[in-house]
């Protein structure tokens, strides 16, 4: 845990802290500025960007709630992300279980086919998906549920890889014992494998949820104008009211601050979920 030396120099320690503090200020200032600007009058936001608000006003937020469709967008994002995460994780868990514990024909080929999905930049599928979900075939383009297929499909490879890793660390003796006690494959899956892989499930759920919550390209291409998710609602708001600095900062705050609050309270899990998701995937 520590490189902490027994005899480190005072000056170097101070210099190190000063350096880190400067980086912290540069890093945090944009967010700080966004929050302050959201409470300013427009003229003030333009004229004195670095100052504290002369008078703290809430009318920017009122504007955001009236003209932006953020309540609706929150609901849409929640619906599509929760549904997609649940389906993706359940299906991925089943597949990962089979990949980890059963020996069947074509196992490696199938597994590699899934892994290929992680190397493919998702944007190459925008054009064909646009067609596949369009009126000629599935005809769900423009609706919120158009996102479910691609979201689930692209969440599967990472999830399967991580869960398979967790399932294959379960000791064989434990599985044999369960079978001797009369468990079939499904029981082993439910009562032995899933409880033992809980941390891996946490990683997969957090990683996929945040990825979907912040996803932009698919939503931009596949959603109709009435079904915006949060990133799209934000982008639309910028398009319409972008010249009003204070209002747009309020809209940004409405989207970003709840995420940051959750992040601060659950940072251990979120940092672990995002890094493990990216590294193992």
């Amino acid at each position, binding site marked *: 845990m520590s490189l902490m030396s027994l005899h480190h120099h005072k000056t170097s320690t101070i210099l190190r802290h000063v350096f*880190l503090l400067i980086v912290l200020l540069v890093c945090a200032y944009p967010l700080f500025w966004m929050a302050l600007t959201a409470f300013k009058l427009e003229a003030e936001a333009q004229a004195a960007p670095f100052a504290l608000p002369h008078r703290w006003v809430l009318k920017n937020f009122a504007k955001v709630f009236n003209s932006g469709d953020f309540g609706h967008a929150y609901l849409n994002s929640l619906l599509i992300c929760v549904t997609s995460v649940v389906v993706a994780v359940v*299906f991925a868990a089943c597949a990962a279980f089979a990949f980890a514990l059963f020996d069947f024909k074509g196992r490696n080929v199938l597994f590699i086919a899934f892994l290929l999905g992680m190397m493919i*930049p998702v944007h190459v599928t925008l*054009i064909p998906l646009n*067609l596949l979900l369009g009126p000629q075939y599935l005809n769900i383009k423009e609706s919120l549920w158009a996102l479910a297929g691609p979201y689930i499909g692209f969440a599967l490879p990472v999830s399967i890889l991580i869960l398979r890793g967790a399932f294959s660390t379960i000791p064989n003796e434990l599985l044999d014992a369960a079978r001797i006690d009369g468990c079939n494959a499904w029981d082993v899956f439910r009562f032995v494998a899933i409880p033992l892989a809980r941390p891996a499930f946490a990683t997969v759920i957090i990683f996929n949820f945040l990825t979907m919550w912040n996803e932009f390209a698919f939503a931009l291409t596949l959603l109709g104008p009435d079904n915006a998710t949060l990133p799209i609602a934000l982008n639309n708001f910028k398009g319409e009211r972008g010249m009003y600095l204070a209002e747009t900062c309020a809209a940004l705050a409405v989207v970003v601050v709840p995420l940051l609050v959750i992040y601060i309270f659950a940072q251990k899990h979120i940092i672990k979920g995002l890094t493990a998701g990216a590294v193992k995937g």
Partner: protein
Amino acid sequence: MFILPALAIYALFVLTPIVGSARMSLFEWGGSPLPRFVAFKNYALLLKDTIFWRALMNNALVLVGSLVIQLPFSALFALFLSYKTCCRTLFRTAFFAPMVMPTVAIAILWQYIYAPEDGLVTKLIQLVGNDDFTFPWLAMPSSSPFLPSVSLLCIFVTICWQYTGFHMVLYMAGIAAIPDELYEAARIDGANELQICRHIVLPALKPTIAVSATLSVIGSLKYFDLIYLMAAGLPQNDREVMATYIYRLAFDQGQGRFGYGSAAAILLIAIALVVVLPIQLTRLRKA
């Protein structure tokens, strides 16, 4: 069977589109209502398309920047934080925070920071000197085909803001895994801090560096949101990376060049496989 549901969705929404792209890339399909089979004409055109090459170049430039600038700094921050530090958690939390934000929000925020007349960067320069200073940070085309534009550099700063904390956390974990005995032994042998970093920490971090670099390579092929939103003010032949070019070919108003865009997409897959597959296979074999 356990795999079937996953396989069905994966086949329908990931594999089918890729095959579909490959097929579509052989057709000319734009203004005309019916696709016309043109074999490899789209690919031949792409190889002569200067925007395509510029887009690929921009991908490469951002990647080089990530490897040469972002990764060393992430490692340095991690190293600094691994010494006994006041409020270490605060630093880590703050540096990592941009990772949880939607890229759209980051792009909008930084567009204000880079606004030509009243953005924060411009205002800051006005404060310290020239009152009349203005500069189109995000609309400066590049001067040479092999150099990044000023705007791309500005966007690169934003990319660093977004991802440095993430890589830093990777390096922190790597440093934390080094056993304390190694340092103690080195100190007893009279090594100073620099020597310890050079001869103990750096070699021990090799696997972490490999992971962090791999993620940068994979990530660099997937740049979309930030470039699409922030570089929109640049001239057409300057603002693209591969993913945004594919998107704009197909979906920008009046374009609808699905065949041509698909050909670009297939080339991007090919590049991804050639670059990423060997790296991933080595990693998986180790794991």
